[in-house]
């Protein structure tokens, strides 16, 4: 269950998928497909994610209490499972964003031409 494999090109760096999903859900609840679409459009197709791999991440976040889920009528008429951010999720997102910002800032500083 889950080997560590080298990140292939254009894949999400490990650990960031969770953060991005949470971020996507800050404004409104969405279902899995909607999240996938949003991510595709926002990253301009740069970051590819096998859309199926969203679901394990969503389950994980749900188990940890960062997301809450409910079934609702979607705009296509079919039932879909909508995920929304919990307050715990919001707090977690804040922390992760901060941490990510620090790390990427540090990396950027190193890569800067001196």
């Amino acid at each position, binding site marked *: 269950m889950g080997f560590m494999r080298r990140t292939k090109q254009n894949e999400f760096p490990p650990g960031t998928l969770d953060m991005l999903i949470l971020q996507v859900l800050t404004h409104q609840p969405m279902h899995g497909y909607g999240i996938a679409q949003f991510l595709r459009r926002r990253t301009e197709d740069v970051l590819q994610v096998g*859309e*199926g791999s969203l*679901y394990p991440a969503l*389950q*994980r976040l*749900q188990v940890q*209490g960062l997301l809450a889920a409910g079934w609702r009528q979607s705009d296509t008429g079919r039932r879909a499972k909508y995920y929304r951010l919990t307050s*715990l999720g919001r707090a977690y997102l804040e922390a992760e964003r901060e941490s990510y910002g620090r790390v990427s800032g540090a990396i950027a500083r190193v890569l800067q031409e001196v």
Partner: protein
Amino acid sequence: MRIVMRLWSFVNRLGAIVGLRPVDRDLKEEMDFHLHAKEAECRAAGMSENDARLAARRAFGSVALAAEDSRAAWRYALPDSILQDVRYSTRSLLKTPVFTSAVVLTLALGIGVNTAIFTIIDRVMLRPLAVREPDRLAAFGARPYAGIRLSDGPHQRGAQLFSVPISKDFARYPDVFSDVAAVGSFPVTTYLGGATAVAGEPLEQANALLVSGNLFRMLGAPVAIGRMLEQSDDRPGAQPVVVLGHGLWTRRFGRDPAVIGRTIRANGAGYTVVGVAAPAFRGLSPGINADLWFPLQTQPTLMREDSLLEERNVLWVRLIGRLAPGVTIERARARTNELFRRLLEAEAGASLSLEMKKEIDKLSIDLVPFTQGFSDVRSRWGVPLIILMTVVGMVLLIACANIGNLLLARGSGRQREISLRVALGAGRIRLVRQFLTESLMLSALGGTSGLLVADWTVQFLLGVLSTRGAAAIDTRFDGPVLMFAVGATLFSAFLFGSVPAFRATRVDLNTALRGSSANCLGDRRGWNLRRGLVVFQVAVSLCLLVGAGLLLRSLANLQQQDLGFRAESVLIAEIDPQGGGIERGEMPMIEHTLLERIGALPDVSSVSLSLYGLLSGSQRTEIVSVDGYESGRQEDMAVRVLFATPAYFKTVGATVSSGRTFDDRDRAGAPLVAVVSESFARHFLGSRPAIGSRFGLDGPESSSQIEIIGTVRDIKISDPRGEAPRLIYRPAAQVAEYLNSIEVRTIGDPIRLVPELRRTIQEAAPALPVVDLSPLSAQVDSSLRQERMLGELTALFGALALMLAAVGLHGVLAYGVAQRTGEIGIRLALGASRRQVLWMVMKQALGWIAAGVVVGLVAALALARLLRTTLFGVEPADPATILAAVAMLVIVAMASAYWPARRAARMNPLMALRFE
């Protein structure tokens, strides 16, 4: 925050296990929606329906993987996979019910008997007394000595018994012991209820211990209700009190708490019950229960004898001390011996000579730990129990070897399944874990049923072990025993399961998946292992058979030896005139009546009375001084003494070798006479004629001079194992003592006479309690109880082991034949005769058996040497026994090898060649 996340994680997963969330169904619907939506998007972009669907699938990735990973988020990984293993193992075990039940049964037997023996060992040898800090207690004297000994001065080597006054002296030195308590060295037979026996009604008998008032407090012995004995109860003039044992309280008083303060009658006197001991505190010797605890002060009343409390020369108590804080037992030993010598010198007082002082200096007290109580039962049963433990341990090993072989065979039968799983990506560790789970499950089932077997076995063994007075050992299964059972279970599982698990998962995918049996030799290394196991089983079986043979021969020797008396057609009645409240002065009259009435019965050829019965466990020892015999320095001049009526020798069938036995001339007031045993005559008189020689009893200053009037051949009067003791017989009429045994020689079967005899005794002396009435041959058997039990059990387990080994041999051989079917077919087709094939297989078996015998012999000889002290009349390396054991083994093994060989020879070559 992380903590809250973990908490949620836990709660949600729990909910999933319990089934609150239908995870699977939700997931499917969700992913279906996703795919559908993606498909719609692609179609809107212009793709055909088919292309759209394919594109959607491609974009999604593996549905199965996503589903599995999603589900995994809701589970705990490890418990989940373990549960999976358990479910899988259950299914696979249920698919082969014969195999499973055979294995479980074998394990139940093996683990069960091991647990049973361990239970007894734990109770008898390992468990500490249920008192405060038992490891700080020490007993004076290591050997299990009981009785009353009269000392004529400092002549005891390795002091075991002490007088009451000296025990009080010891207690006055708190630098070594914070307290010292005295305990009567023998249980006092106590009759509860009425003052004397009501005619026909047996009184309830109980075992009582006389203890000093400070014993309970020193031990910190727990009390269930009421209070324990105190020093104030042990003073002259104190009110007679008693503490009940928990067993007696349950049996006779129904656990009634109102018993406190009541007066009970014991041996004719009244005692107030002040407390009941806790159930965990059953006595001071494991395996022997104390029903009643009396203060030492009550000794004269309870024993209906003269007081032994002030006599410095009467040694009858054992001492227990609690070491002062910080004192080690070594230091205490030195100081105690110092004290002891000083006290003895003080006792001798003015008459202390240099000689005496030197004698005293040689005395020593062996201070031993009292953590488990007195070692009486332990020292008698220690060795046999250890032997039994070894035996059943070996049986378990053989059983595990068998099961190991079975599992190996089963594993190789599942090669295709395993290879498939490996090809699909299963990790080796995972597979090994699954096989080990299977082994553990088998073992667990075997272990739990084993507890049932253990219970029955313990009950059975206790039925054999317990004697009158040695009440049952507590047989509840608790901590140490359960831990042992669990340990044995795990050990067995590991033993028989690990190698097959690793072996089975080592796969060469190519050959295994193609499923050909072109590999005629089978797994070479596995074969070696299997052969090795068979050889091991044969070797261990041989060890057990040799051991059983030696022990059985020992037993036969003991049973057939000449004990010096003729045991057939003799009845022995144990009577207790003191217990019946009969006065010593009444005894001659009663004796006369008994002899007359019993002698008048038809079918009685002779009758006599004596001090104690043959093989009854009682004995009487006195110090003798023989005219014309210079005793060596420190020589033990103690001899056995028996008082008997004249017809004794004729009744028990002792052979008179010279002179005469008692008759009517030898009565009170007449010159004192005695008959002695041949060993006595040989030792003290040498070549001088025994008849006419004189000796005295009770020390060198004794004035009683007794003349020897005859000699008899030696009798093994109390122990069939050792040498016959030097024995003096004196006419009962010349000694004013209670006699406790009636011997009756009958014409015909003695059992028939029992009821009539009992009635006759009752009529002759209504107040006389008859404690036991049984044939002498039964007593002989009973005294050999230990040897019999050991011999029979070892034989039983030896047979069991042999059977298991035979089954194992058969199994492996059959498997080998099955593997070599192709080869055998070719041989037969090429012209080999059936006999040649038969011989080929048998030769293989013979090779293993021979190897097993060789290894087994070496081990057997080594182990047999350890049995030396237990054997009687047979050497550990006795060739006849060893030969018989080997022969039996070979015959049984060859017989079991015959069947697979026969099947191989009978094979149809055509079928064999076609066999895939």
